[in-house]
């Protein structure tokens, strides 16, 4: 469902080009669980942003569900982000002034859903992450693990097929990290396609496939044998 060929992403830092991605070929099937691993600065987040249509590559082709992303307008890309992709960030990226449920409702809001539908589906998503009791809390009133679970609920609310998680447990203690990891595995069981970026080799070993990236190159791409 996702096919990248010869993707390059080059940043210009004061005249000095920085190659964040170099000739990346990457594909994924529906329902797969891929872990992307690599050292800091290797280009993991850049790859995820390109996959998620948040960023455009400098060169190369990217086909999502049979459509060329480069040919889409900004609004069409926004629609892809809204309907096909759920983002989970390392630093949660919740809106601090909104309550948990209001945060979870956001993707549905931009889809034009009515108030009742938004509320019901947001509650359902919060229920999945075990936080329906905290719906009216602001992010500041929640623990880190709880905030990340709200962020996951937000990613789930629109029921997108693909979940992109960029170091989702990087800012969490080991117990909360464990809970979030389990939650992601449950979602994979329920049929979501998942891309998980991590530093942690043990966590990567739990995925179906492990992609190693270094200096913007994919250096290995192998099935995990259990």
């Amino acid at each position, binding site marked *: 469902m996702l096919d990248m060929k010869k993707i390059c992403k080059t940043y210009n830092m004061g005249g000095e080009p920085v190659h964040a991605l170099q000739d990346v070929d990457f594909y994924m099937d529906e329902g797969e669980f891929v872990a992307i691993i690599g050292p800091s600065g290797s280009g993991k987040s850049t790859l995820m942003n390109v996959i998620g249509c948040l960023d455009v590559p400098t060169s190369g082709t990217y086909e999502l569900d049979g459509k060329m992303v480069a040919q889409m307008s900004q609004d069409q890309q*926004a629609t892809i982000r809204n*309907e096909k992709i759920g983002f989970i960030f390392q630093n949660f990226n919740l809106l601090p002034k909104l309550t948990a449920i209001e945060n979870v409702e956001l993707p549905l809001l931009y889809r034009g859903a009515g108030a009742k539908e938004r509320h019901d589906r947001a509650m359902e998503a919060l229920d999945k992450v075990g936080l329906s009791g905290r719906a009216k809390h602001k992010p500041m009133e929640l623990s880190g693990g709880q905030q990340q679970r709200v962020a996951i609920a937000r990613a789930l609310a629109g029921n997108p097929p693909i979940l992109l998680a960029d170091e989702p447990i990087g800012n969490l203690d080991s117990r909360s990290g464990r809970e979030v990891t389990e939650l992601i595995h449950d979602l994979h069981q329920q049929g979501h396609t998942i891309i998980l970026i991590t530093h942690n080799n043990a966590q990567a070993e739990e995925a179906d496939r492990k992609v190693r990236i270094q200096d913007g190159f994919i250096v290995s791409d192998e099935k995990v044998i259990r």
Partner: protein
Amino acid sequence: MKLGQSFRLGINGITSNKLRSFLTMLGIIIGVAAVIVLVSLATGTTSSITESISSMGSNLLTVNIMGRGNIGTLTEDEMEDWKLIDGVEKIAPIVSGSAEVKAGTETATASLIGSSADYLDMNQLTLAQGRTVADMDVESRQMVAVIGSEIAETLYEGENPVGQNMKITGSNFTVIGVLESEGSSSTGSSDTRLIMPYTTAQRLLRNGNIRQVSVQVASSEQVESVKTALENLLYEKYQDEDLFNIFDQTEILETLEETTATMSLLVGGIAGISLIVGGIGIMNIMLVSVTERTREIGIRKAIGAKKRHILTQFLVEAVVLSCTGGLIGIAFGIAITKIVGALVPSLSGAVSIPVVIVSFGFSLAIGVVFGVYPANQAAGLNPIEALRYQ
């Protein structure tokens, strides 16, 4: 996303920083309040002047003679000729001055008017008591006078003034009538007037010249033609159009309206400037807000907000800000107009409704005009850069 939701987002943006929002609105509040107060007071006052002028009878012409020496005099015969002009209904010569009036130990200052029997009618004055100056009084230069209610009050408190004596610059007069009290108006009260036969006034003031004549025209359609006929007659006599002029009420009203229009334009200009300054304040704060909320915009875009969603969110915020300012300004403006109207009797406290509507429309427009640029900036942000912003 529906407009109602963008509206809620906008309100959230404003209430989350109340003091700043209020300070931002202050420019609009002051601008709108100033417009409403100034324009309401100006139009209220001119409309009361206009009203009192038209109540004097709109078909009245006033002929003023500026001629020198004897050439300035209008004779009885000439005035009789005027009566033959088609459309002329009544004629009253006017000799005016001011005089000290004494009765017993009391003194009053009166504005003295010498005229004919028709004066009261032509100026829509009514008698409370007694009778008016008659043609007979004019012919025989009777020492009689009709007095305003205030003079009557001062000189004959508690007594019936009719039939009483008084002294005007040493001569003895008899009161024959008292005018109905009118109260003050912006064109001067009739309550301090003293009306006597013009022949008597000419002698009393030692001024033989009749320099002013009021001419009542039968209908307003004839005003123009009567005016032209009079001009021709007067030009024949004086051979110089600078030596006389003829005023009609509509001319006075026109002058007044022109003055009001100029004043409104001036007030509107000042108010417009203050509204624009308020608009710049809104734009400034919206730009700050866009910068502060770059991350929020990034998050919203990552979740699937389209350009127009972000655009409406910030535009609605700017418009809500300016319209709230406008509404508060309207409330203040109405309150201040009412208070000033109550404290200063000569000013009307009536609020001009069109001005309220226009100034609200203006504050809405200000919100749109000065909100578009910041909102566009927000909508155009690159999602990745916005997310990365610290």
